[in-house]
């Protein structure tokens, strides 16, 4: 078990699942297909991977200022990730997390996209602000 502490956007419970790690920034509006959850952006390092129900780990958000709605629509079609884990919080992702009560934790001591690997089993505790890799 390895535990990493960060800043939680809001206490909305504990979720667990499989990590999907991206070294590239992520946009939910047009970067991810709402109807499937599949990353659609041309040239993106996780293009073709599905974010649905994953613990999504990435450096930060990007995209247009509509990205909050992009995430919201992904959530409404039930294709959103279970949690957002970032090095730096893009304020649009904070807005999305608040709007949908999705756990979001950011600002760790080390680069979280290096410490977590795709496929790791992860527990996210949004009250404690912790991300745990389960052995």
């Amino acid at each position: 078990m390895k535990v990493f502490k960060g800043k939680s956007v809001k206490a909305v419970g504990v979720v667990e699942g499989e990590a999907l790690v991206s070294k590239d920034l992520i946009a939910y509006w047009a970067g991810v297909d709402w109807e499937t959850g599949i990353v659609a952006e041309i040239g993106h390092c996780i293009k073709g991977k599905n974010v649905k129900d994953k613990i999504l780990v990435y450096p930060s958000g990007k995209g247009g200022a509509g990205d909050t709605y992009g995430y919201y629509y992904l959530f409404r079609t039930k294709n959103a990730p279970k949690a957002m884990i970032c090095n730096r919080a893009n304020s649009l992702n904070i807005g999305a997390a608040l709007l949908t009560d999705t756990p979001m934790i950011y600002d760790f001591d080390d680069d979280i996209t290096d410490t977590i690997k795709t496929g790791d089993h992860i527990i996210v505790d949004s009250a404690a602000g912790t991300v745990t890799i389960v052995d």
Partner: protein
Amino acid sequence: MKLNEQQQAMLDGKLGLSCKKAMEVLVQMGEAANAEEMIPVSFVHMMPPDIMFFPYGRTGRWAKDMTDELLADVKSFRVPVTLDPMFCNIAVADTLQFPPETKEEIEQIQMSAMKRYEALGATPNYSALAFYTRDGRLGDHACVADSTPIIFYNSIYGTRTERDDGIKALAAAITGYVPKTGVHITENRRAEVVIRVSEELDFTKFCDSDWDVFGLAVSRKCKEKRPVFANLPKMEFTELKHMLAVMAVMAGLPLVHIVGQTPEAPTLEAALQGKEPLAEYVIGVTDMDKARAVYNTTDSDALDFVLMGCPHLTMKEIKEVADELRGKKLAAGVKLVAVTTKELYNQANDMGYVQDIIDAGGEITYQMCIAFAGTQVSGAVLTNSGKGAYWYTGFGAKEKNRTVRLASTRLCARSAVIGKVVEKL
């Protein structure tokens, strides 16, 4: 978070239900980002989902749900407000292949939303180039929703705004406040990485869309780290628009510095606030080639649509389109839609440019989002905008069987006349 008397009264519901909900949103956003206090904003640029974000069908209903709740008992906004574009100017809805029933629904939802915001005191500019309506002041605080004016106000004017979304902007317009987070704070405006351009790049040969490609190449290096450009040539407004619009989306940045050209970067040291950069990147020809490939999903020269105006065309761009089209006709089967602000449209009309475009069989309209509405079309699209290309390639490109290519404003217009994508003037 510390709240003053007025902010606390808002939170307690003493100034109405909407004000209470808006303050709750702002407090939550502030706490999520370690804010200690709220700051008053001088103005708000709003991006209402019921005006801009696919206002029909499912997304139309969701957008209305979201805004109805926040606007329940608002009588007027507390600060000056400008508005982002409407989704589609109905004048070009048929050309953009909207079926009649969708067109009706769009008109109904977006027009009633527009009336509602205007009645609350919003200025009906309907453009991301909000600084044409209200310019920025160095060190002033604002709340801006739309990535293009966000990066423009911060970088070019030194006006401080986070990457705000439609909901936060609505809450700020209702209350007059935002939490003091991110680039509202001086130390968070410090440049983190230095961008140098290689001597390989000859800027004198750059066309406007080369700045989109350059913006993407830089974005792929700096990612979320705020950059300072150490050695860019003096850029004019249209070039800045092309570069910054792309960086705003592809790096998700609120702010960049350009030494000698932006107000917080008189020198490299000033932009870095006396600290060492985390990294230095050099942008060369290979970076440009890789970025260019992202914007072209085909090398076929087939052409069905030329879509321009994301963000809205500047007068320089409108003139270039008119110069290319004057006295000519668009090739059979090719459609051209150009979009600008209402003010520039009227001026271009006075100058005869609008007539030049119409006489050639093209269409020019105003105050709409050609990036989002343009995702309705099927076929081969050519655009002068990297930001536009991002939506055209990302949004239903497969279902609509849509290909995308990027070219300069002049080449876009010339291609429409010739009937296929031409690569050189």
